[in-house]
């Protein structure tokens, strides 16, 4: 990774080059769960943006104080504090959004984008770039969630942000605002990403970053990425090897 990075470069990086949803495929649980409408997607994205930017800033400021061995619990406490603050603010000022997002607000704590950025960027970079990295990633996430939400809302109800778009004759495909629709939309997105990746590979471009997820492939996050991370790093057991050996059996 480049050593010096301007604020603008970090923003563009988060929105386009390393867009957490469209390029890296991170944070799939909230992406699927709350994008039933464009408004919900936007609300979730904005909430995540605030938490991500603030936790990146604080983690970066404290990076010299936090011992390496207990960094994960320290990150989790910082992130959880900001999530709690944001949740209380939402309850007070935007109760309708809070009700719509429900349990997914406190679950921002375990969103792998936030822990991932803390680990891969904020813990090893100065405060200002980290803040903008958080804002950029948050904006990328917000844009992605709003787009997915808009597509699902358009197909499922014929509206976007509650405004009628489709002609009256259009029969809404109700399944798209229900759970199965989320899987179908994400499957299409994944297929599109594969398509771009394959075409890029044929043209000889570097596509290694696409779909690289927490570490390799976020869909295999449980095997290699955030799920593998131990709460307290006392040893570096070769868990991944164990698991792949088991899979091979």
């Amino acid at each position, binding site marked *: 990774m480049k050593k010096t990075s301007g604020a603008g470069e970090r923003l563009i990086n988060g929105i386009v080059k390393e867009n957490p949803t469209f390029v890296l495929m991170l944070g*799939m*649980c*909230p992406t*699927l*769960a709350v994008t039933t409408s464009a408004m919900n997607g936007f609300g979730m994205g904005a909430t995540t943006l605030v938490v991500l930017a603030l936790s990146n800033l604080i983690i970066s400021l404290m990076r010299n104080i936090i011992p390496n061995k207990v960094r994960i*619990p320290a990150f*989790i*406490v910082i992130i*959880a*504090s900001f*999530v*709690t603050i944001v*949740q*209380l603010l939402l309850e007070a000022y935007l109760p309708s959004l809070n009700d719509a997002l*429900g*349990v997914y607000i*406190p*679950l921002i*704590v*375990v969103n*792998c984008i936030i*822990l991932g950025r803390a680990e891969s960027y904020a813990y090893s970079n100065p405060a200002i770039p980290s803040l903008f990295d958080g804002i950029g990633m948050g904006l990328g996430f917000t844009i992605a969630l709003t787009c997915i939400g808009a597509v699902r809302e358009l197909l499922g109800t014929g509206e976007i942000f509650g405004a009628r778009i489709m002609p009256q004759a259009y029969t809404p495909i109700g*399944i798209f605002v*229900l*759970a*199965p*629709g*989320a*899987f*179908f939309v*994400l*499957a*299409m997105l*994944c*297929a*599109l990403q*594969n*398509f771009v990746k*394959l075409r890029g590979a044929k043209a000889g471009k570097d596509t290694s970053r696409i779909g690289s997820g927490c570490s390799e492939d*976020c*869909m*295999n*996050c*449980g*095997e290699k*990425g*955030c*799920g*593998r*991370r*131990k*709460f*307290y790093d006392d040893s570096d057991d070769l*868990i991944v090897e*164990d*698991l792949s050996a*088991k*899979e091979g*059996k």
Partner: protein
Amino acid sequence: MESVKELLVILIGSSLVSNVVLSQFLGLCPFLGVSKKTNTAAGMGCAVIFVITLASAVAGLMYRFILQPLHIEYLQTICFILVIAALVQFVEMFLRKAMPALYEALGVYLPLITTNCAVLGVALTNVQKEYGILAGIVNGFATAVGFTIAIVILAGLREKMEHNDIPESFRGMPAVLLTAGLMAIAFCGFSGLL
């Protein structure tokens, strides 16, 4: 104290009607990541049942006897995530020392569950729905059973699909997600059950 009937309703509701993966989208990472083989999927399912049941008991006790008397319910998110993460690590260490056979079977999967959103999700849902401790444990167990059912079915389907001729762009994850979507439609059928 909850009646048996209420507990039964929670049991069926959380495992089938509002399935944790297919309708609430919690625990998607292991659901998609560890579902290549039925054996590993079943192992993962057992580990999840074990951890979620234990975690909902511990979180429920903590909420009832520490957070509520002190009126610091707003700290639930921080407390739950720390307790759950520490609990999983502790269980792993305990199993390794005390029950090597069980560790052999489940140990590999335990670290994968530490930051799984399903575990925290269940603890928070228990508080939100104001379940008592026993009802919370039943809800945790039922949720985890629902997860196991879903992941084993998906693994079975993936084993069958392995040699199918799928368009190049749809190979891998897109095909799995479409399968999960079809399973979600099937699970919608349970919604009239309660």
